[in-house]
């Protein structure tokens, strides 16, 4: 072991081994984060094009309309197929190429081994494989947009028979998904083993930072939920490529042509069950790491222990478990009878309870605090009401009767975007501002950070708040031209507000991009523990060398020992023994 630790010196590695095909969890984490940020911005850009068509239907897109391919646009005007493709790719990219790799691959890889006092992940080569399989999957997905069909256009949910009868963009999508799922599986095994096996001495499970708990539960979700989708993707690929009928019934007639070559006997609803059996846990994969980051930032910036640490841990475990038995609430409108729908709406109401507990614990943590309004804290604080709105608006969708009216409307779009955009993505920003000094030894600019936060906070609400009212009015999702229907025509003003909100939100990201790159080279140099934090990652040098800790840390206390009475400093790091 000591020999191994000795060989961790990294100065002798060539560039491509140190920064490209690296087995170091921190390099892999940064690779994941940077790749995911680029994909996130790309996915966001697709949406900005769609928002033009929604705001000004049938009018040429300024600047970039002429650059779009013939499948996407004609004479600078987005076409129906183009809108569907951008929509499907936006969803796919944001979820599978943006947030999951950033939250799990990026933050999980970089922070988790440091927070448990480990020298690296348990399986460094597996870790590298996970990133490169993800990278190939990402290239396939994005690359499909530059082929003749311009990508898949059947929604990110790929419901057959639409997806099976579509052009070959869907085939590429399925192949890309197989890579992305494989990558997540490799990563999840690694996280589970690392967390269980490589914790520093003294770091019992109930001394783990909440972030580690959130990542551990997330890893179990990925491990258990992804295989069914991988299998389902393989089946749909067979339906598309070799003419099987797993999801295709007999007797289909497409544009008056009887598809008599289909053997039939398949059921399109089966795909929905397999898809949502993954995709509902996936929703928690999107949010749990974000909650973990928020908990870290709030504890650090309130300068007090998190209120109800154990409730938080039990809640997150319970959430993970429950997330496997709520999936069919995405399918209430498929013709579900009373018995099945009763079960799924009951589990859906039950799963809201641990979310309420987590939110309550975090907000009560503010009571009696000494709040520092740092940039990460601003994002973390904004997360709380935004996530609350996202969570609460899930209630009328989870109840079958109100879902009759709201299902597939903009209410749904507003609901889940409040969870993942001003929810998870704000948590990601909080995490980037918070751990940037650990990764680089420099701090990001506060002034630019605030210039990033405030406009983002305002405009993101301008984008998503109108959607609840549109949904109430009956505006449906996935509509190339909302004004084609009465409800959409009547609420067209709200659509304009969303669109302008989205474009201004994009401008509000400029300070972040400038800040990010400027701070890498010119940011203020700071100490190893600039936030005066307690968890183990701050005991390592910034940036941590290969192998992380100069000496293996030993843990003496819980994760959030802030403002301990009778101690001169307002924080007691986990690796420092308290006198007494």
């Amino acid at each position, binding site marked *: 072991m000591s020999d191994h630790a000795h060989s961790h010196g990294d100065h002798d590695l060539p560039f491509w081994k140190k920064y490209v095909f690296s087995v170091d969890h921190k390099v892999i984490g940064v690779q994941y984060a940077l790749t995911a940020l680029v994909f996130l911005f790309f996915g966001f850009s697709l949406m900005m094009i769609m928002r033009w068509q929604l705001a000004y239907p049938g009018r040429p897109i300024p600047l970039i309309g002429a650059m779009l391919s013939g499948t996407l646009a004609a004479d600078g005007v987005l076409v129906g197929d183009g809108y569907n493709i951008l929509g499907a790719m936006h969803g796919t990219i944001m979820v599978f190429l943006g947030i999951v790799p950033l939250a799990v691959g990026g933050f999980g890889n970089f922070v988790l081994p440091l927070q448990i006092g480990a020298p690296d992940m348990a399986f460094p080569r597996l870790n590298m494989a996970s990133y490169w399989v993800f990278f190939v999957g990402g290239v396939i997905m994005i690359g499909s947009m530059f082929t003749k069909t311009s990508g898949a256009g059947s929604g990110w949910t790929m419901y057959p028979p639409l997806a099976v009868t579509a052009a070959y963009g869907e085939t590429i999508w399925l192949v890309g998904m197989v890579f992305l799922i494989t990558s997540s599986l490799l990563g999840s095994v690694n996280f589970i083993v690392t967390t269980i096996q490589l914790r520093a001495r003294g770091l019992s499970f109930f001394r783990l930072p909440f972030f580690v708990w959130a990542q551990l539960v997330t890893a179990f979700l990925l491990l258990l939920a992804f295989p069914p989708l991988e299998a389902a993707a393989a089946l749909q690929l067979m339906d598309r490529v070799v003419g099987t009928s797993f999801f295709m019934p007999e007797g289909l007639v497409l544009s008056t042509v*009887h598809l008599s070559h289909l053997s039939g006997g398949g059921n399109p609803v089966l795909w929905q069950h397999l898809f949502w059996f993954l995709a509902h846990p996936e929703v928690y994969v999107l949010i749990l790491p974000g909650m973990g980051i928020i908990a870290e930032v709030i504890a650090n910036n309130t300068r007090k222990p998190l209120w109800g640490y154990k409730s938080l841990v039990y809640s997150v475990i319970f959430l993970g478990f429950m997330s496997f038995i709520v999936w069919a609430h995405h399918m209430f409108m498929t013709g579900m009878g009373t018995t099945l729908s009763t079960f799924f709406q009951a589990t859906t*109401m039950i799963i809201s309870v641990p979310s309420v507990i987590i939110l309550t614990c975090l907000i009560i943590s503010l009571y009696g605090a000494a709040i520092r309004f740092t940039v990460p804290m601003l994002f973390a604080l904004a997360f709380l009401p935004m996530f609350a709105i996202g969570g609460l608006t899930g209630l009328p969708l989870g109840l079958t009767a109100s879902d009759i009216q709201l299902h597939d409307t903009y209410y749904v779009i507003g609901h889940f975007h409040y969870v993942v955009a001003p929810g998870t993505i704000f948590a990601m920003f909080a995490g980037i501002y918070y751990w940037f000094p650990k990764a680089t030894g420099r701090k990001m600019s506060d002034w630019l950070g605030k210039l990033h936060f405030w406009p983002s906070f305002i405009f993101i609400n301008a984008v998503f708040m109108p959607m609840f009212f549109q949904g109430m009015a009956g505006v449906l999702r996935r509509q190339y031209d909302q004004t*084609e229907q009465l409800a959409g025509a009547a609420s067209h003003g709200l659509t304009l507000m969303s669109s302008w909100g989205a474009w201004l939100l994009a401008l509000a990201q400029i300070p972040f991009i400038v800040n990010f790159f400027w701070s890498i080279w010119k940011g203020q140099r700071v100490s190893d523990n600039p936030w005066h934090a307690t968890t183990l990652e701050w005991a390592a040098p910034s940036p941590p060398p290969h192998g992380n800790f100069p000496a293996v840390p030993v843990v003496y206390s819980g994760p959030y020992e802030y403002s301990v009475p009778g101690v001169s400093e307002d924080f007691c790091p986990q690796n420092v023994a308290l006198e007494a």
Partner: protein
Amino acid sequence: MPPDLHYGRWSPPDFSLHGHNIDQLIDVVHVFMLALFIPWGLFFLYCLLKYRQKPGQSAQYNPVKAKISKYAEIGVAVVEVFLLVGLSMPVWAQYKNDPPAEDERYTVRVIAQQFQWNAHYAGADGVFGKTDASLITELNPIGLMEEQDPHAADDIVTINDIHLPVGRPIYMRLTSLDVIHSFFIPTMRVKQDVIPGMEVPIWFEIDAWALSDDIRGNMTAATPIEKASWYKLRHHIFAEDVVTGDGEVMAAAGDHLGESYKAGTERIAELREAGVKELVMQPRHPLQVVCAQLCGNSHFKMAAQLITHDEAGFAAWQAAQKQAVEFEDF
């Protein structure tokens, strides 16, 4: 009939018997959401204002004994159980259990395809003619066996017009020829995925007074010309003739603004220049059936109009359809 019916303010008007229960549930849930969010938000703001870090003052290490969180969580759970058991489940059961008796209901088949709604009515004999997928053409979109099956002779098939009687239960048998669609009537609180390979029945009853021609009149609204936008009024027609001061008829009742953004916007400008102060318009088709499930590149256009009749009007419509077919035969 309620006097003022409009789209776009909170939920659209409702013309079904079960719909107001759904609306009530939606309203109650939103009150509950606000009842949680507002006190919670006030506490949040209070903490932000009060507990800003000040020099020489440290945070409280010991956790506050907050029983209130426990009570709040129990309260949330109790309200959710009430929403579930007291409201959602009964409304859903009303919507889903116990189809209306065969002798009371009016049965109609709806066959969805990219991108139209085909409606199939049994006609006077009350028996649906058989269909065969291999007979499907653009003129016979459901493959009705008009020649082979005697029951098919009096059947009626309409495309993107769905005629229904009010005041008695409608029993609708939904299926799809190609991909998954979703049958949604925003003004009736009815939504059901339409899935190829299976037939899913739904049932609902339209309010006895909800005749589509009356509703159109009731949805008449005046838009000040400065606020008029073609996007908002593209599905509307003039409720009455638009006449300028010197007696010139600028637009006749029943006219619309134009088929495109350009034409419509020019028309609005023309009317403004002629001194028209407001546009008094009504929706051409006040009751829409739309598709709620992505079904291809023209998904957004997939809409039918619902035409509701009283019993006499419905019988007259059915008879007229039959006659039209007979005329064609000559």
